[in-house]
């Protein structure tokens, strides 16, 4: 049988050479990305050098940020970054997981498709839009209703005391939760869908309810993938800049209350980079960036590995 001319293999290169070229190209591209990450890390560290040299490890342990006297310590920013991200996961995680389970296991097709589409759409809304909404809608709402209510019921805890500004650590965590829900829900849904139907059928055949099927057959199999989705959300929360800057209050202090204003590492860079005129100030901002880079890189790597394990690795491990 003869193939049409267009389908015949072009005879210019041997298949071996072709493979070598292909392999070399993708290896170059792949390692290029790695090189980029290493390069960014190195140049950040280089620019951060003067500040880190001047303040030493104390840079990450002191609570002072005074550009006028050029005295910098970034502990409040680290605290704000970690606490808002943690809040985002605590508030957003259950919602995202519930959405994912509903969409993957329970929703009928006519609900699943539009809702899935909307969830993905939410993930694509620019963060400055979330920030403006947070400042003009969410913060006033929190100040007038949610914060007084929490203060009434839980005011015996130091976490819920103090004046209600509307903006602050709590608002920052809440806006982050709203922002990371779509990412976590979309990835978790895909991971849950990837669990083979054999598992569900076996469980149902044993007489399990839908809940038991999800609880004992589906979620354990998808566990590492869901953890990966959560870590992806965490990565986004740690690095999110604009939205948090607009609602966190931008005060370099560690407040006892969640209602108090705080600061994040990304926010201080966004706020001060454009007008940082002294070399040490600029270097301190690079050092903050380096710290944030060091913080987010392992989170993202862990997320990739976990997602990869459930999607392509041995199914139903654990």
């Amino acid at each position, binding site marked *: 049988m003869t193939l049409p001319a267009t389908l015949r293999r072009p005879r210019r290169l041997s298949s071996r050479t072709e493979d070598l070229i292909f392999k070399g190209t993708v290896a170059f591209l792949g390692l290029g990305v790695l090189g980029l990450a290493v390069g960014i890390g190195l140049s950040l560290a280089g620019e951060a050098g003067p500040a880190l040299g001047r303040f030493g490890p104390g840079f990450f342990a002191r609570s002072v940020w005074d*550009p006028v006297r050029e005295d910098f310590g970034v502990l409040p920013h680290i605290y704000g970054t970690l606490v808002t991200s943690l809040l985002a996961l605590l508030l957003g995680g259950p919602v995202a997981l519930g959405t994912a389970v509903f969409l993957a296991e329970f929703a009928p097709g006519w609900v699943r498709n539009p809702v899935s589409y909307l969830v993905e759409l939410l993930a694509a809304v620019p963060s400055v839009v979330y920030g403006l909404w947070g400042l003009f809608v969410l913060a006033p709402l929190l100040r007038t209703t949610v914060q007084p209510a929490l203060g009434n019921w839980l005011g015996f805890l130091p976490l819920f005391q103090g004046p209600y500004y509307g903006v602050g650590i709590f608002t920052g965590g809440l806006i982050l939760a709203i922002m990371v829900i779509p990412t976590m829900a979309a990835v978790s849904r895909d991971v849950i869908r990837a669990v083979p139907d054999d598992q569900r059928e076996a469980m149902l055949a044993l007489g399990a309810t839908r809940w038991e099927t999800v609880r004992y057959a589906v979620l354990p199999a998808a566990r590492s993938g869901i953890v990966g989705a959560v870590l992806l959300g965490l990565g986004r929360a740690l690095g999110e800049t604009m939205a948090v800057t607009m609602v966190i209050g931008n005060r370099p202090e560690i407040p006892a209350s969640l209602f108090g204003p705080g600061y994040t590492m990304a*926010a201080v860079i966004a706020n001060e980079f454009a007008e940082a005129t002294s070399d040490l100030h600029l270097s301190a901002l690079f050092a903050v960036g380096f710290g944030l880079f060091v913080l987010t890189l392992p989170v993202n790597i862990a997320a990739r590995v976990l997602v990869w394990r459930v999607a392509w690795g041995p199914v139903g491990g654990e």
Partner: protein
Amino acid sequence: MGNLGPLKFLALALSLLGVAAAACAPAGAPRPGVPAGAPTLTGAGATFPYPLYAKWFDVYAQKTGVRINYQSIGSGGGIRQLLEGTVDFGASDAPMTDDQLARASGKILHIPTVLGAVVVVYNLPELGAALKLSPETLAAIYLGQVSRWNDPRIAAENPGLRLPDIPIAVVHRSDSSGTTHVFTDYLSAVSPVWKERVGRGTSVSWPVGLGAKGNEGVTGQVKQTPGAVGYVELAYALQNRLPYALLRNRAGNYVGPTLENITAAAAGAAPTLPEDLRVSIVDAPGPNSYPISAFTYILVYQEQRDPLKGRALAEFLWWALDEGQAYAPELHYAPLPEEVRAKARTLVKTISYQGKPLLEK
């Protein structure tokens, strides 16, 4: 990239883009009476005067064919780019420091172009009339020493006003800005305690208060928080119809930020201005002077490297100090008083190429 820092790299990339854009654009469609091959100037810096500068550049290009590309990247960025020689001129709300001037490759002139003002805005809906503040009280509020609106110190200056018993929610800019520099410069000038504890700068370590991003952030925060006080550029207060405080000036009068009062501040400061005009005019003398007024500058090298561009730049500055002033009021900028324009013109006349002045005036 060797030692090319990211900022330098960015500056390089931007200037390459600028060159590419200039090369692609039709080289100034010849207009009647406009010399062909008029140079294109590039500048970068302050965001505060950008609306006025954009208007100026547009009008000036139509008039003379000289096109001016301006990136409003902030005063700090403008100074940095000028020092690195990637732009023909910089623009800044604050004068350059001695330290920065020492790093320049030549003498840099500060040409004031127009005046801006920082206004103190507040959210006290049932007040009845405009709030009056003395410099001492304003400093005490931002130092956290006065923390409720019905504090006797505020009440003493505002007899007859219904001052509520609510906490003062202090709002300041979180991003570094020329506005913050002018405001903290004023507080440092009027309050020794502020000068000692906080000082002046584009971003400072605030004793109290919430940080909001940008003029729009401060405006939003003040509008939504009953009992809030903040500071913004005049144009933002006017556009958003925020009530602003009348401030007691050095002559003892409570004055509002009208364009006349801002110009009056520069006129009041004029007799004591140094020749290089590199000076703050906050808390200026004069019966009508609005106390938180400031120049915004265009920064140029006195010795130009390119005679064609240098002459175009000097001619533009001359025009800005003359006809250009008329465009200021409609955009809420205060024109310079004649005394200051005369001094600025003297500086423009010294712009030279190989030691020879470029302007024949």
